[in-house]
């Protein structure tokens, strides 16, 4: 199974997709709030920048697929009626979570049980995280991208497990890439923003990337200097923090939850916009432009919120990553079993 868990259609999403949806209002920044009619003026830092500091989470769009189900066409937003339905589903989920005893028909599987996930607090208004193009779906790959050799493990989370290098950069606790580090997934969606004069930093909980973003107008690093998270430069457009990121290593992570999906190239350019729209609400938007991978740029957007008590926790990933060992030793054990079975057949 590919590690497209963000794109995995959750029960919530399946239910939502089955609803009759109509075109909704213009993009709203909060998962539940009505379309913004009045511009929010955030506080300023002592040095005069808009103050976006705090720990933000994309939890409210957990389960919303990256690509819109095709049957929904260009309908990006849920109707009020559909939102009410989703709210009921969330309420049921909360009630189920609190059930003291295991249900008689409780499913037993190899996958993680439901209680592992963190939960959306409000229904996400969107039918997909991709908001442009209008069909809410990732553009076609260019022909070269379809045949480009992919490093083993890049964007794939169910590898053949011949080597530790076969596992994705996420499983190896190395990186989820920029978009994979902020797109909502089942847990660990925290984004801690800290500002200083001339800088903004974003510390992401899961895998613990720390992005240090100069805001002083300096040019990008030399094109020969490349990294998993690229080279970011930011500036303010009104109250919006605009971050442009280039200088990526190609072929490492894709545009999907936790960096899954077709890996992007070294030509990837991301333009992110962080716009505060309320005391605890922010609109996040990123334009993904990778002419060596996609036939056209596309845009992903979703709300970020601040929640009482929410904070980033430590994520010392590699030291406890027993799953790497277990998956490799499991693959070797299976090979031995198959070899023994083949030998027995010969006799």
């Amino acid at each position, binding site marked *: *199974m590919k*590690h497209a*868990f*963000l794109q*995995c259609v959750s029960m919530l999403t399946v239910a939502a997709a089955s609803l009759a949806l109509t075109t909704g209002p213009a993009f709203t920044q909060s998962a539940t709030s009505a379309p913004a009619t009045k511009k929010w003026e955030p506080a300023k830092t002592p040095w005069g920048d808009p103050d976006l500091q705090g720990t933000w*989470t994309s*939890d409210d769009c957990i389960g919303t697929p990256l690509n819109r189900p095709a049957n929904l066409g260009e309908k990006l937003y849920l109707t009020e009626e559909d939102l009410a339905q989703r709210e009921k589903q969330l309420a049921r989920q909360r009630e189920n*979570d*609190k*059930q*003291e*005893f*295991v249900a008689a*028909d*409780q*499913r*037993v*599987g*190899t*996958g*993680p*049980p439901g*209680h*592992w*996930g*963190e*939960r959306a*607090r409000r229904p996400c208004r969107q039918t997909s995280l991709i908001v442009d193009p209008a069909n809410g779906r990732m553009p076609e790959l260019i022909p070269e991208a379809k045949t480009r050799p992919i490093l083993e493990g890049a964007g794939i*989370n*169910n*590898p053949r*497990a011949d080597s530790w290098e076969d*596992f994705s950069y*996420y499983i190896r*606790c190395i990186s989820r890439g920029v978009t994979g580090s902020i797109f909502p997934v*089942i*847990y*660990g969606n925290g984004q801690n923003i800290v500002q200083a004069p001339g800088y903004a930093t974003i510390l992401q*909980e899961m895998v613990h990337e720390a992005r240090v973003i100069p805001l002083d107008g300096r040019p990008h690093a030399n094109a020969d200097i490349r990294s998993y998270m690229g080279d970011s430069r930011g500036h303010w457009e009104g109250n919006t923090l605009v971050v442009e990121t280039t200088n990526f290593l190609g072929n490492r992570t894709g545009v999907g939850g936790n960096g899954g999906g077709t890996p992007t190239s070294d030509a990837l350019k991301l333009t992110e916009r962080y716009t505060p729209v309320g005391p605890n609400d922010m609109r996040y938007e990123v334009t993904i432009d990778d002419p060596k991978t996609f036939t056209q740029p596309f845009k992903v957007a979703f709300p970020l919120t601040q*929640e*009482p*008590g929410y*904070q980033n926790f*430590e*994520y*010392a*990933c590699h*030291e*406890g*990553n*027993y*799953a*790497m060992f*277990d*998956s490799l*030793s*499991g*693959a*070797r*054990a299976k090979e031995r079993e198959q070899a023994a079975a083949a030998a027995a057949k010969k006799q």
Partner: protein
Amino acid sequence: MKKTVGIVFAAGALLLAGVPAWAHHAFSAEFDTDKPIKFKGTVTKMEWINPHAWIHIDVKGEDGKVTEWMIEAAAPNSLLRRGWTKNSLPVGTEIVVEGFQAKDSANRANGSVITFTDGRKLFIGNPAGDPGAAPGAPEK
């Protein structure tokens, strides 16, 4: 619930419907659907480590022999957000684990269903009713 259940190779009795491998890694690479387990064990330790916590238990077999098992649990950060603390699972607690053994036949298993011996779930929702609440947040 049987006192000593041991490893139950009764895959046919279990509903093995596909569960999305959507956590930190592909569970299908780690655990074997041909090796279902269900047994009672006594907690000896809980490792609060990322990316996932592990519960260590002693399992007494029908022959009286004790074996040590490790049961994979949720991400510690999520456990904290859902109301767990280091005191939630004291050493000596008896739990019942149902899931699948590691592919390499080591004494490790996923904890698909984990309960106390009276059938109560080990992991329930945060009493604060908010998955993002701080540890120990008061009930709403």
